[in-house]
């Protein structure tokens, strides 16, 4: 049963296009009569369903009780990340995050920590990404003291065992060696590098940046950022809130606060890098990503952009790109577009598809046409309503479990959003008009300046990719891992 196939790959979140817009099926008239009783629920709030508590040392807690199952989960965020580091140091943060967990702690050898946690079917994990450090804990509620002890040891007292540092280095080396095995991986990596250049969002990890990392580097990195006043923790599950605060104090209360100096993160310079960038690889399917820099997450147009992109290619099946490329012409299984707004600086707009090599030109043609049409014409009422109603009606699923709720509210604060962000979210969606969708399409889509990444067997492409801009060939050198 490993071999399971789905109707659709997971895309972001539907709408008819052109001729189909005004069509009504018989079923739609029945559906209109089905009705639905009012859904009674409210967006969870701090101070109501979720408690926010700050320890004397500055550590911020978010807590939500839920006694249905005998489980407790914690998610932790630490202000750190490789975005603050220079290119040669880009791997230090990630390695620190991993070896904090695997390399043992003051009280536990690497093996004893694994043994302890796996025996109770619990987990404690740690990592550091581009814009945050994070950790997690999950245990049965009867084992909460073991889980908290392990979590506090990993966050506060990692010892960075040299053997585990070397193991992690060799794991990273192997992943670098394997990075060209999958065409999707190549396309995503090279596209990011083309649009972001040497900004941390576009950097490519090389063995040269890993091989000389020392234990001291990791110790120093940890000492720099892991202080309670730089930490947030979200807890949910089978506990009593007051008791849990006491327990956190027991394990983290004597962690002394210290000054943390986050260096300024380099800013993304907004520019485009137009052209067709081709990587030749023996494949029967072309991997295509076309796009450019998009918006920052605090952009007030993001709601209008969300609905516009839903109609263009974000709303899976009945978005225009899917409708034409997949449903009408059968050219791709996976096709769509996204406007990312998760990172702090400029995200990207991307339209992507995988199609049999000879259809590459046709797919790009449709991409261009549909992006241009989004800018030229108002979407139909039906498309607009579908996008808007989808956003409104599935909002309840953002809050359908306690661990999701506490983690969301914690991330809100971490990312610097106002605390009433979710309360106002639906109003912001409802405020978007059909005209707004066209306006943001004109403003934020740049079909003539797209960076188009194609990973394919170029000898099998039918038609001239030069129709979409100057063609540049990128030769994959193969990673250097010595």
């Amino acid at each position, binding site marked *: 049963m490993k071999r399971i196939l789905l109707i659709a790959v997971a895309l972001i979140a539907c709408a008819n296009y052109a001729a189909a817009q005004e069509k009504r099926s018989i079923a739609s008239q029945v559906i209109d009569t089905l009705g639905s009783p009012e859904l009674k629920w409210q967006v969870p709030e701090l101070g109501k369903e979720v408690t926010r508590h700050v320890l004397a040392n500055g550590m911020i807690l978010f807590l939500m009780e839920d006694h249905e199952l005998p489980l407790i989960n914690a998610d932790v965020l630490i202000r750190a990340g490789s975005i603050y580091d220079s290119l040669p140091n880009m791997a230090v943060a990630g390695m620190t995050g991993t070896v904090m967990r695997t390399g043992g702690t003051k009280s536990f050898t690497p093996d004893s920590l694994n043994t302890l946690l796996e025996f109770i079917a619990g987990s404690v994990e740690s990592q550091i990404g581009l814009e945050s450090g994070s950790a997690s804990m999950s245990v049965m509620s009867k084992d909460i003291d073991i889980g908290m002890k392990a979590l506090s040891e990993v966050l506060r007292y990692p010892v960075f065992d040299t053997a585990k540092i070397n193991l992690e280095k060799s794991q990273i080396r192997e992943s670098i060696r394997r990075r060209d095995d999958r065409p999707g991986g190549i396309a995503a990596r090279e596209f990011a590098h083309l649009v972001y250049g040497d900004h941390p969002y576009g950097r490519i990890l090389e063995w040269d940046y890993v091989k000389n990392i020392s234990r001291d580097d990791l110790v120093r990195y940890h000492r720099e950022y892991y202080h309670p006043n730089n930490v947030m923790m979200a807890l949910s599950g089978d506990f009593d809130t007051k008791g849990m605060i006491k327990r956190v104090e027991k394990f983290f209360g004597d962690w002394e606060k210290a000054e943390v100096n986050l260096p300024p993160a380099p800013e993304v310079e907004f520019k485009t890098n137009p052209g067709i960038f081709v990587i030749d690889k023996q494949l029967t399917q072309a991997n295509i990503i076309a796009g450019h820099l998009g918006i920052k997450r605090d952009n007030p147009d993001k709601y209008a952009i969300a609905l516009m992109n839903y109609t263009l290619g974000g709303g899976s099946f009945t978005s225009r790109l899917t409708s034409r490329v997949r449903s009408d012409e059968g050219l791709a299984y996976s096709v769509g577009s996204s406007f990312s707004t998760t990172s702090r600086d400029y995200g990207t707009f991307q339209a992507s598809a*995988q199609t049999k090599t000879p259809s590459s030109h046709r797919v790009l043609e449709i991409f261009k046409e549909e992006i241009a049409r989004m800018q030229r014409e108002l979407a139909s009422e039906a498309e607009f309503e579908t996008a808007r109603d989808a956003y409104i009606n599935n909002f309840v699923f953002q809050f359908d479990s306690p661990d999701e709720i506490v983690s969301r509210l914690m991330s809100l604060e971490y990312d610097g959003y106002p605390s009433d962000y979710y309360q106002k979210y639906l109003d912001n969606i409802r405020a978007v008009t059909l005209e707004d969708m066209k306006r943001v399409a004109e403003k934020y889509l740049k079909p003539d300046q797209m960076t188009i990444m194609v990973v394919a067997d170029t000898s099998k492409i039918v038609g001239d990719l030069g129709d979409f801009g100057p063609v540049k060939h990128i030769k994959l050198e193969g990673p250097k891992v010595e």
Partner: protein
Amino acid sequence: MRKTILAFLLVSLSAQAKQGEIRIDAKTHTFPNGLQLVVVERKWSPTLSFVIRCKVGSADEHPGITGSAHLLEHMLFKGTSSIGTTDYEAEVPIMAKIDTLAHKLTRAIEKTRSPLYRGDMSEVDSLRAGITRLQEEQRQYVVKDELWETYLKNGGTSLNASTGNDGTQYFVSLPSNKTKLWAFMESDRLADPVFREFYSERDVVYEERRLRTDNEPGGKLWEQLYAAAYIAHPYGWPVVGWASDLETVSREEVETFFHQYYAPNNVVIAVVGDVKFDDIERLIAWYFNPIPPSPKPPPAVETVEPEQQGERRIMVEYDAQPQLAIGYHGPAGGGIDKEALDVIASLLSRGRTSRLYRSLVEQKQLASYIDASSDFTRFPDLFIISAAPKAPHTNEEMETAIYEELEKLEIQGPTEWELQRVGNQLEADYARGMRSNLGMAFRLSDMQALVGDWNYINTLKEKREAVTADDVKRVIAKYLVKNNSTVAYLVKPEGKAGAHTALPQSLPEAGPK
């Protein structure tokens, strides 16, 4: 309120909650047409998840139509005579014309495959163009992807469907005020689907095959492993289907397949979330009762895989770094041997204390990744160990090291600690498995379909705790042995070795491209 997941409020505040006190308490009903319903009421969030499981998968196909179960799954999103169309009557003659051309196309393709064929592709091309023209003509009546759009517009999430060897699932999570919409659309597509846009969808599935198998090293390796391990039983062909079948399978063939297997007496529905059993039972009765059961029970899979006659070894060439997969024929789901194999998979590769991880990843550092898997299936399936070597180490070295660990486990047996660890993990898995409505609906429908009793979930822990150290030793000796194995290596194509490798000095010169 919480009559379904009981026990928790009673014991949760006690730090010493005894094991096994949480139990899923589902309610069931079988409708007069054979449709089975399993419901768990949960009130935490005003949402609910639905899984409709049809007891049909790729194992029910036959050569020539491989991939049909999966293609059919795609087709069931294309609407009915009332969903997805403005004028079904007008579509019928167009679809008949398409079918005629498609038959001619199949014959033309077959002709071009003959070594005696001397013509060009012009007949194939013009027939394809003819089908495309007719599909465009039909499009004036099609309301594109209406079923999908209606779900999303009404807040549907996790909307999708999946097909495996044993079953096909259609699933969605909805706000709890949308149950009627679900019942209307699902009953309509079970009773009266229309396979419009069939031939373009067949191309979509071919693209899916290219994406997941032809251009994906892991997917390719697994397909070849299964094909080599099975010489008779249908688990040997891929769920997505062989490429040539995807070029020729017809709409009528898939329709026939549909009528053989899609009937309420072959379907299980699981609903988990904010709903009252009586309400959902009444609603389903209203919408699904009119659908008649199939006149004949669905055909059974008669072929039994013959006993393996010795080790099989295959090389799969692909331009990627090496990988290894070893498959051993094991039993179907149910029974102590299967439970023991599940325990063995956990002993071997679950977590950082597991035997293969410790030995191959941490200590010898031969592998960058290793996994052992054992699944609950309808027919005897493979127990698979898969791994990726860490250069300069090789598939060969990993293979030897894996056999050493298996031998060690067979001779010494697992420690008490290890067995206890597996038991504790089962208990926690059980609780974690209940966290998501959709996850629970999958587990319930799976067990109801495969064993005929959702409550099997509640007995898994007990069954697996019955596995002793001696069972582990006995089962390794019985199944995880050379003459029952198929060993698959992913290797670079001849002449391309070293193309992108780090060790050019140790490998022959790259040959001509």
